[in-house]
């Protein structure tokens, strides 16, 4: 008997729509393989992460340009329920921030040069800190810190080398047309961000 394949075309859909479609389809079930075609890198990364979380086998086929076709085969164990969010296995150290959320490329209101200066200083200081958060999440203009030519790039890379996961909001990168210039860390989506923020103590800055 041929395996039942469900086909989704998510080309042209803004992030996180493709992910939502895939989650919904997987929750519904009734197929052996889910084939989903996407055309933006952020959606592709989201789907790959989601597939790993949902314990699906993934086959990837590059179509053309940024287009690619992902074939997800559920392992049959437990398919994730809608609303369930990927969370990290290990608990944060008591009293320490698990996540630093950076929601702007500067700290505080007021003069923009000063705000940016403070943010650069903050990220440098983090690299000298003994205790690090598990993740740094960049949103809105905060994603500018992680792109080519950013004065904070070297410091974010240092943090990454020390095991901190650097995650940039895919919607924000796309909004500012910076997706192609991301130079450190990965791309994430609102589901993952919400999951991470609820996972442990969070410090918000920016």
């Amino acid at each position, binding site marked *: 008997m041929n395996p039942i394949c469900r086909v989704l075309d998510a080309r042209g859909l803004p992030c996180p729509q493709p992910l939502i479609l895939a989650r919904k389809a997987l929750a519904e079930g009734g197929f052996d393989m889910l084939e989903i075609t996407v055309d933006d890198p952020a959606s592709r990364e989201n789907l790959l992460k989601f597939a790993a979380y949902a314990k699906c086998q993934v086959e990837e086929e590059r179509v053309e340009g940024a287009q690619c076709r992902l074939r997800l085969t559920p392992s049959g164990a437990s398919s994730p329920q809608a609303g369930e969010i990927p969370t990290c296995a290990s608990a944060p150290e008591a009293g320490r921030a698990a996540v630093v959320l950076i929601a702007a490329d500067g700290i505080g209101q007021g003069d923009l*040069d*000063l705000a940016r*200066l403070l943010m*650069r*200083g903050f990220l*440098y*200081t983090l*690299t*000298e*800190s*003994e205790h690090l958060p598990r993740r740094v999440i960049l949103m809105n203009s905060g994603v500018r810190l992680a792109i080519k030519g950013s*004065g904070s790039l*070297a410091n974010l890379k240092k943090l990454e080398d*020390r095991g901190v996961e650097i995650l940039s909001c895919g919607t924000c990168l796309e909004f500012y047309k910076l997706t192609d210039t991301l130079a450190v860390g990965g791309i994430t989506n609102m589901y993952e961000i919400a999951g991470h923020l609820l996972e442990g103590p969070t410090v918000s800055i920016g």
Partner: protein
Amino acid sequence: MLLLATYASSHEALRAEQILKAAGLQVELIPVPRQVKSSCGFCLLVDVQDHGHLLQESGAKGLWRVKEPEPGQYRRNYEPHL
């Protein structure tokens, strides 16, 4: 050689950063470390090579030698530089 240069104000530190970068030096603007005395909260880490005179010209008020952290440590140390 990596030196830390302090300035009278953040504005001067920012201006010096531009001057030194324009001269081709590697510069990083960082918050003034606890060990270092300065009237302003930001200073510059500068790889001066043989362009020490540029630091004076940039308006530096104080100069400190930088000791990189030992393995397993993350904080740099600083000693006054004559």
